[in-house]
């Protein structure tokens, strides 16, 4: 799944997005509420908050144990550079 705002886009692997534990970790980690958990425990990206991203990497830290790196934060204003 991917959502784009004006300055920031977020991409999450579909398989990972369906994982309630990962969804919970992302929801807890983001300080500006970009992630939310749906009723069935899956992940939702709150598009309204995407441009509030402060590039803190906490979402990346929350999933760092996953070798597939399922979350990408993309800086649309920087030729699509991915937050590392």
């Amino acid at each position, binding site marked *: 799944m991917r959502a784009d705002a*004006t*300055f920031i886009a977020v991409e999450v692997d579909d398989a990972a997005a369906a994982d309630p534990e990962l969804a919970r970790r992302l929801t807890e980690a983001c300080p*500006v509420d970009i992630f939310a958990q749906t009723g069935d425990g899956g992940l939702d990206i709150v598009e309204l908050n995407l*441009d*509030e991203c*402060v*590039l803190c990497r906490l979402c990346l830290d929350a999933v760092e144990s996953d070798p597939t790196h399922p979350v990408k934060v993309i*800086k649309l*204003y*920087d030729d699509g550079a991915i937050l590392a």
Partner: protein
Amino acid sequence: MRFFEYEAREIIKRAGIPVTDYGFTTDAAEAREIAQRIGGPTVIKSQVLTGGRMKAGGVKFADTPEEAEAHARDILALEINGHAPRGVLVDPRAEVEQEYYAGVVWDGTRKQPVMIFSPVGGIDIEQVAEEQPDKVGRRHFSNILPLSDFQAKEVVASTGVTGAALNRLVPIVKRLASLFVENDMILAEINPLGRLADGSFVALDAHMDIENEARGRHSRLLAELGVGEEETRQAREATPFELAGEQVDAMDHRGVAGNVTEFDGNLGLVIGAGGGSLTLFDAVRAHGGKPANYCEIGGNPSVAKACGLAKLVLQKPGVERIAVMMSIVSNTRVDIVARGVIKACLELGYDPAEKIAIFRIPGAWEEEGFKILERYGVDYADRSVSLNEAARRAVEKIEGAPV
């Protein structure tokens, strides 16, 4: 926050400074009762927070209670400079031998209160200072240590006052200094301070202004005086534009993007940072610019909040462009403000490169911010460009813009 005269008199009375046996009312019939109690000639004074009461007919003299009632009725219906009176003060017409002036004001440059005294009262102290400078005594004093007897005596005596008058004035001046400090005032003025035939002194009028930020510290006094928490007592009511600014600031807890004041120019300002707003506003004016507004942004507002403020300013009738300027920021992120103001332009259908005359916010996350500004072709400046120069460039662009 300014006090009405009747409130200022109450503060003076509580401080132990003699006042006349006045009464305050919002009802003409009650004015008659007060005049009856006083039992002699009275003065009926409109209670408004504006000058020119006497000229406007807001101060009238009455010889009888019936006359006092009639005058009160007229004055209660009389608007002065657009201000409806809060009520009327019914004051005994004192037989005064001489009018004096005693005041304390906050000297923002010295960061100390300054006591001002003059044996020439009843007129503006500025006029006395200009026409009879030797009749104005001044002395700064500590806002921690109380004004001493000696200091009070010195300031009064410096104007030529001697003898019994000097001895009686010293405690009054000292109490005025104390009430100024204790109540976090920026102005406490008794004018005139009347000397009666028996040599005693009485406060005949008073003006007081408390520091707005200190209101919370004096909530008990304000409640006792009947000052509502919602009363701003500003010189004018907030405009719809200014109220909209308050709503923007209240939209979330992050940072500040508000304190908007409306002006009638064509250059919208999104400005702030540690006094930067005032400096930048002055700089724009010094370069011949006409600000459409004043505002304060800082403390790391959210993108939405910066966007909301910029949209408000951009939509103000007459605004041709906005200038986004701050001094060097450490607790506000450059990239977040950049996103906010660019988003405002985009959402309103404007080209950010056209609408933003200049973006001059150096500091935290500036590299990321400058990338955003470059992406949208916005003219920006780093810390090598002074606030003054940034203001000049913004004004220059407005002057070249089609009207």
